[in-house]
């Protein structure tokens, strides 16, 4: 048999096994990425697979390609709303936060384990970046709903801090390589150059790609390939200029994701798949690369690093970066716990290996153990932690059941096919009185396979198939007509939604009278939604709370940027389990009151 065929066989079996185990892992709730890593280890030299893979340069090459795809995909998903809500805290976390994390870990390693500063700093830099794995866990799989701004911040941070972590690691490797050099202004200049140029190239590259795709007429299947090639080209070109190709690719994805692009949905779906493949390949490869028997040699150091990272460095960085933005302590505690490490630290630990630094293998082994500890402990406990800290919100109203058809050329409207849900606005109102927003137009209605005449249609039924033309900016509004209404999904109001709910269009003066809070002169005559929107600014999102006198008003439901339903909480946010526990313990100390 040819050697090549064997490699293909092994590779495909590994990927197939990964996909199949992903089904299993979602059933038992194990962190998905950990199972990929484990599978790689099983196939590796110490496991039953017995495959010997020890080629650091090849691993870096494959890793680079995989990271480019993952980062581009991460940028692609970063929509304007997320960006608007989270850019400031996310930027703080992914710059200052990474620095603080690396610094605190380094200090801990230096003082506690007696390592010299240089290798301590390198170790800190390697483990400083969080992984998009956190997003994987948060995005649906775990079923946790977070306050919009918190979710957006964590999502954006996980993608945007990789370039910073990579920069720091490479800088530290450089410092160790050239013993005589001391860190100084050169490093700062280098940072500005790398991020400045990387950012500029990324934005320009994104705009160029959008222009190219929209101007060129070609077979639809080629558009995603064009995007992949352009991303890899931008990455390598930027790297060769001495700037950060990772940042460039991330920003490029962001530009493409937020512009109207021909075949945009096709590209999005393609990258979704490619990002999965990249994650699988990356983790399998890193699992193959490690020599498990060596991991045991390093475990005391590694556990100390993991402990310092999870218990000291990450909480310190989060507290420093998120407190100025009005995140509550519970949200900060949760954000600290979501600092999952994934492939990036292990991948970064390959760089010392490549540079031929002494003891390079030990960095790799330490990073490996840190990632396993982080994924296993933090990844597994995330849903539980969200409930324990009281940051989990009730699930969103059921999403609309729709298929986005790709926009046609020279058409500024999307073609969307909806299946009408029961208890939707569409079924509750007569067809003639549906009051769809202007420029939203129903083209066809199919009921049980028959096309209905629109002028004879009395009312839409659940299960009807509706083809609608929608301007892109109104797609969220259109969704609401065909999905379940907020009211019919609400059930009893959950504590974090407040005691009562009013419509956003309610006048603030009416509420102020009943719930006795002062209204500023400039707020008289406004709706509650308008007052809240003013107070919260463009970053307003579900779960945000603002105190008015003795009550708190809560954003319970939004359509796009518009606040639709507002909760009134009479006695503050619900206690977290931690506080409940404290209160419960407090009972034993409290002397019995007479007369009870």
């Amino acid at each position, binding site marked *: 048999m040819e050697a090549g065929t064997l490699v293909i066989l092994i590779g495909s079996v590994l990927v197939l096994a990964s996909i199949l185990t992903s089904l299993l892992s979602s059933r038992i709730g194990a962190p998905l990425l950990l199972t990929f890593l484990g599978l790689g280890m099983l196939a590796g030299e110490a496991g039953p697979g017995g495959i010997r893979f020890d080629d650091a340069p090849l691993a870096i090459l494959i890793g680079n390609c995989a990271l480019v795809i993952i980062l581009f995909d991460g940028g692609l998903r970063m929509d304007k709303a997320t960006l608007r809500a989270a850019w400031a805290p996310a930027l703080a976390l992914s710059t200052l936060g990474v620095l603080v994390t690396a610094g605190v870990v380094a200090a801990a390693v230096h003082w506690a384990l007696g390592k010299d500063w240089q290798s301590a700093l390198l170790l800190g830099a390697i483990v400083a970046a969080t992984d998009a794995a956190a997003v994987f866990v948060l995005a649906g799989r775990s079923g946790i709903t977070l306050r919009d701004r918190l979710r957006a911040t964590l999502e954006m941070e996980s993608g945007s801090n990789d370039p910073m972590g990579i920069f720091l690691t490479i800088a530290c490797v450089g410092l160790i390589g050239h013993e005589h050099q001391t860190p100084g202004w050169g490093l700062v200049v280098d940072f500005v150059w790398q991020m400045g140029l990387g950012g500029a190239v990324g934005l320009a590259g994104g705009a160029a790609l959008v222009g190219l795709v929209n101007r060129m007429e070609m077979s639809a299947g080629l558009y995603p390939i064009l995007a992949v090639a352009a991303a890899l080209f931008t990455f390598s070109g930027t790297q060769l200029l001495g700037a950060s190709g990772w940042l460039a690719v991330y920003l490029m994805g962001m530009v493409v994701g937020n512009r109207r692009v021909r075949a945009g949905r096709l590209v999005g779906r393609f990258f979704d798949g490619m990002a999965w493949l990249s994650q699988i390949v990356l983790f399998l490869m890193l699992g193959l690369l490690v020599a498990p028997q060596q991991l045991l040699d390093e475990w005391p150091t590694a556990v100390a690093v993991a402990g310092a990272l999870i218990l000291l460095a990450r909480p310190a960085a989060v507290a420093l970066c998120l407190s100025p933005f009005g995140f509550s302590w519970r949200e900060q505690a949760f954000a600290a716990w979501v600092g999952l490490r994934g492939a990036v630290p292990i991948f970064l630990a390959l760089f010392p290996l490549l540079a031929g630094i002494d003891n390079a293998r030990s960095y790799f082994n330490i990073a490996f153990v840190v990632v396993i500890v982080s994924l296993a402990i933090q990844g597994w406990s995330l849903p539980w932690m969200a409930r324990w800290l009281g940051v989990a919100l009730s699930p969103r109203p059921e999403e609309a059941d729709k298929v986005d058809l790709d926009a046609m050329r020279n058409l500024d409207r999307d073609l969307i096919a909806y299946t009408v849900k029961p208890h939707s606005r569409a079924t509750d109102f007569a067809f003639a009185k549906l009051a769809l927003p202007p420029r939203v137009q129903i083209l066809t209605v199919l009921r049980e396979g028959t096309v209905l005449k629109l002028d004879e249609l009395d009312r839409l039924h659940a299960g009807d198939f509706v083809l609608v033309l929608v301007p892109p900016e109104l797609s969220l509004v259109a969704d609401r007509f065909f999905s379940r209404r907020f*009211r019919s999904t*609400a*059930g009893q109001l959950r504590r974090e939604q407040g005691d009562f709910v*009013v419509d956003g269009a309610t006048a603030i003066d009416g509420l102020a009278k009943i719930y006795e809070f002062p209204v500023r002169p400039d707020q008289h005559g406004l709706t509650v939604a308008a007052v809240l929107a003013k107070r919260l600014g463009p970053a307003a999102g579900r779960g945000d709370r603002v105190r008015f006198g003795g009550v708190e008003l809560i954003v319970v439901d939004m359509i796009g940027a518009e606040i639709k339903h507002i909760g009134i909480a*009479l006695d503050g946010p619900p206690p977290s389990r931690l506080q409940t526990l404290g209160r419960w313990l407090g009972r034993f100390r409290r002397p019995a009151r007479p007369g009870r």
Partner: protein
Amino acid sequence: MDITDLISSDAIIPTLRAPSKKQALQELARKAGELTGIEAREIFDVLLERERLGTTGVGHGIAIPHGKLAKLDRLYGVFARMEHPIDFDSIDDEPVDLLFLLLAPESAGADHLKALARVSRLLRDRTVCTKLRGCESRDAIYALFTDTTASHAA
């Protein structure tokens, strides 16, 4: 604050018969009028004004209509158990069978909000609601309120 500070035994209607939300509110207002000596019509108007801002039917068959009246001297509660659940335009579109009316004087301030929060917290408790639904008499309901007052004190 205890529930029994808000409600007396004669403010409990163990089986209220009313076909609609409007009539149920009218019955509650009538009862409150008897207790407070204020025109039932006036109370009803206040309740209606609050309902216009948004329903006080908070889901799972529970409604907590409330409002403020200048002439009151203290907080007043009225509790009613519907004989047949009625459509109350609730948040979950489910019919309502347990109603707790709370009226507060114009300048009750924190007391009003605290009392409302207390009622809301009590009726969030599913076991309490199940028990209330099983109570046939005024005395049984009042006993339950006294009971929960002791166990829910926070």
